[in-house]
């Protein structure tokens, strides 16, 4: 499975994602610039965290118009795995691959800490290695991570098991229904505010994010390599 990590101007977790995949998981991964317009030959694509275009206008609002985004949308429409963390999640909502929006944290502060999460849905290509309702800890680092959608959209997300991660114990940012990560209806596009790529090595104190990448690579082993 060949994975693309997109690099936008202002991305700052692209290296973390790349190294989590390459060094820790021994995956086939390449950086792809936002200038490029093709993802031919890739089996999955990841949008990293950071502050693309300085978060001007709204986080992700400018990045969604970069050259590479039509190729990302095309991959999503083909059912291939598309993953966005933090700013990547914001871009996925701005481009319309995921419903809702990420608004300013209720506390008006940038929050950087490790938070407890519940794996609400482990029946996705991104979470199959987790136990149902497993409690994990992942870092968050954002100022605009409060998930917002109208009631109808929230009800639809729940009805179709699209809520994948929920904040457990405390809600750090005011996200509606404690939502930390969602998939699209088809299940191949995951966006989440927490950073699994920052929790993949024991020496850094936390490996709870590792199963997300292992899940995806296992999915790739079955679907791509047969």
């Amino acid at each position, binding site marked *: 499975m060949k994975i693309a990590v997109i690099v936008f101007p202002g991305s700052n977790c692209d290296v973390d994602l790349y190294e989590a995949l390459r060094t820790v998981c021994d995956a086939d991964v390449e950086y792809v610039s936002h200038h490029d317009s093709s993802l031919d030959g890739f089996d999955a694509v990841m949008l990293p965290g950071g502050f693309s275009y300085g978060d001007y*206008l*709204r986080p992700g*609002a400018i990045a969604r*118009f970069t050259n590479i985004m039509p190729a990302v949308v095309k991959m999503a429409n083909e059912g291939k795995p598309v993953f966005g963390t933090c700013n990547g999640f914001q871009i996925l*909502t*701005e481009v319309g691959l995921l*419903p*809702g*929006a990420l*608004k*300013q*944290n*209720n*506390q*008006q502060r940038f929050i950087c800490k490790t938070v407890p999460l519940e794996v609400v849905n482990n029946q996705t290509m991104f979470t199959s290695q987790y136990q149902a309702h497993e409690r994990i800890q992942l870092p968050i680092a954002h100022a605009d991570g409060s998930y*917002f*959608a*109208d009631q109808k959209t929230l009800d639809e997300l729940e009805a179709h098991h699209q809520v994948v991660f929920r904040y457990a114990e405390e809600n750090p940012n*005011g996200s509606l229904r404690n939502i930390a990560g969602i998939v699209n209806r088809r299940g191949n596009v995951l966006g989440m505010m927490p950073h699994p790529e920052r929790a993949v090595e024991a020496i850094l104190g936390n490996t709870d994010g590792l199963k997300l990448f292992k899940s995806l690579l296992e999915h790739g082993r079955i679907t791509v390599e047969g």
Partner: protein
Amino acid sequence: MTTVRIFVTYKPSVFDPQGSTIKDALHTLGHNDVTNVQVGKFFDVTIDEQEEPVEEAVKKMADQLLVNFNMETYSYQVLEEAK
């Protein structure tokens, strides 16, 4: 040329963290009659002469880029009419 000021705010139903904080600060300063503060942003957009009516041009810009209709709404006023 026409200059249009486009205002973008959260929808009234969406919690505005900045507005709430500023309202609290105003209360602290004794402005207890303040019941709501709405924070937003504005864009002064200057448009060259064109056939498209300003209203339609503004609507397109709002739809395509300036407003996230999941959580925001907008209004506008024409500051300077075409001469």
